């Protein structure tokens, strides 16, 4: 029986030579992709509109499509957050993923059951907050950055009533200082309670995972959820800002 066993080892070795097995696959893949790209480039021309004209602002003015998710967040947040702080947080947050996710399972193979939370958070961020907002920005945002259904005419004179109020106002605060204090309490309270609740629920993990990891993890998560909450507050309850201060508004 030695002979067949030896033959099997030769046919299915654990390690294969890169040349030819991988290189030929890369080459094949490259040929197919190049054919597709060439056909695409022959059939569809890149756009070229009229010459740049600083005195003629198009309506709507859209950023390149891959940034339309961020541009859409501008409806709900001021530019300092949507355009600067949010992108920085996304980049830093992504870089931290390997250091925050200490689950040793699911390293090098597809699995959902062994790392449900990680997959949910990443998929939600990528598919909903990034891709879905891009699709909405490309196809549904018309003049004045208003929402238009695909069958609707892009009416540049569409009037959308702006009845938004700030959260403290909705709660009956009329005084500027008290409104500001209330808004600050809501935001800080949200992060404080969220963080505290996480540490209480996961208190057994603190020893293994470490305080810093858990703190960063929950706060990045709370920021992501906070963006969703703000969107819901605006769309569902016409809330403009939660926290108004002399320096910045959230």
């Amino acid at each position, binding site marked *: 029986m030695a002979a067949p066993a030896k033959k099997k080892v030769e046919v299915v*070795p*654990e*390690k*294969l*030579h*890169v*040349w030819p097995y*991988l*290189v030929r*696959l*890369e080459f094949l*893949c*490259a040929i197919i*992709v190049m054919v597709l*790209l060439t056909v*695409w*480039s*022959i059939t569809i*021309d*890149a756009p*070229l*509109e*009229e*010459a*740049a*004209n*600083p005195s*003629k602002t198009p309506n709507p*003015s*859209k*950023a*390149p499509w*891959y*940034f339309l998710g961020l*541009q859409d967040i501008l409806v709900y947040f*001021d*530019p*300092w*957050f*949507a*355009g*600067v*702080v949010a992108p920085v947080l996304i980049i830093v947050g*992504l*870089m931290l*993923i*390997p250091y925050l*996710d200490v689950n040793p*399972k*699911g*390293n*090098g*193979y*597809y*699995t959902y059951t062994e790392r449900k939370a990680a*997959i949910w958070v*990443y998929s939600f961020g*990528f598919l909903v907050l990034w891709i879905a907002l891009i699709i909405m920005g490309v196809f549904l945002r018309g003049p004045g950055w208003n929402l238009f259904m695909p069958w609707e005419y892009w009416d540049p004179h569409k009037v959308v009533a702006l009845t938004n109020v700030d959260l403290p106002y909705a709660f009956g605060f009329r005084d500027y200082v008290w409104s500001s204090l209330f808004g600050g309490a809501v935001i800080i309270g949200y992060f404080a309670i969220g963080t505290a609740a996480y540490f209480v629920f996961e208190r057994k993990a603190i020893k293994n995972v470490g305080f810093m990891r858990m703190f960063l993890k929950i706060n990045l998560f709370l920021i992501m959820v906070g963006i969703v909450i703000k969107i819901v507050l605006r769309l569902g309850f016409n809330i403009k800002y939660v926290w108004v201060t002399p*320096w*910045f508004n959230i």
Partner: protein
Amino acid sequence: MAGKPQIPNLAEIWNDIKSGKIISDISKSVTESQVWTSSFRHGYADTPRNRVLQIASNVWLHLHPVKIHRHALRIKFTWCMGGITFLMFLVTVVTGVVLMFYYRPVGEYAYFDMKYLQYDVPFGMLMRNMHRWAAHSMVITVWLHMLRVFLTGSYKPPREFNWVIGVFLVTFTLLLSFTGYLLPWDQLAMWAVTVGTNMARGTPFLGHEGPFAEFVGVTSRYDARSVLLGGSLVGPPALLRFYVLHCILIPLVAGALMIVHFWRIRKDGGISGPL
């Protein structure tokens, strides 16, 4: 009879041609010549030794390991997305060089150079289309690559560092695309970049409309955005700045990082796998 040239025998030559011996004679004298042996460092016969040398003695291919686990070949595992992303980058480099022959990043010329490229330069339109569509594809494939790496948990030890390099790469891919977006110098370009760079006004401390700007004293002519644009609006200085960033600085940095990325895949023990 040293030194005396031998007179070729016609019948013998004819025989060599008929039997095919002449081919092996020629190929022997070519492959044993000094030019050949100095250029190619190993034979081509399909031996294990040559399979190794094929990778190890080639500067481009040696970014690969010599041997890999068989699971690393599964398209279902990698989707080939990293490789396709790199291919798209190479396409933009090649077509981009062709475009640079015809394009001048000057307010008065840029738009008309685009027109010239499209209507007068042989294959100009095709080069432009390939450059643009490859760039857009690269943005999509790099996102898909990232998704695949996340779903297979390939950022886990020992590959954390390569994931971090990857995040730099996705950022640079977007910046490459964004800086290129301005170069056609048409309405689409100017206003997309205006919308994009307007964000920099809101930079905390450093943008003139950002939080705490009043404590720093930045103005619309001197803040984060004006550094980016070389002025307070998207004008010719911005065009030149974006051109230099797009054609020189970002490709060099991104290219260097890609080499580090590939090298680290090798050093981290090849593609991750369920072992």
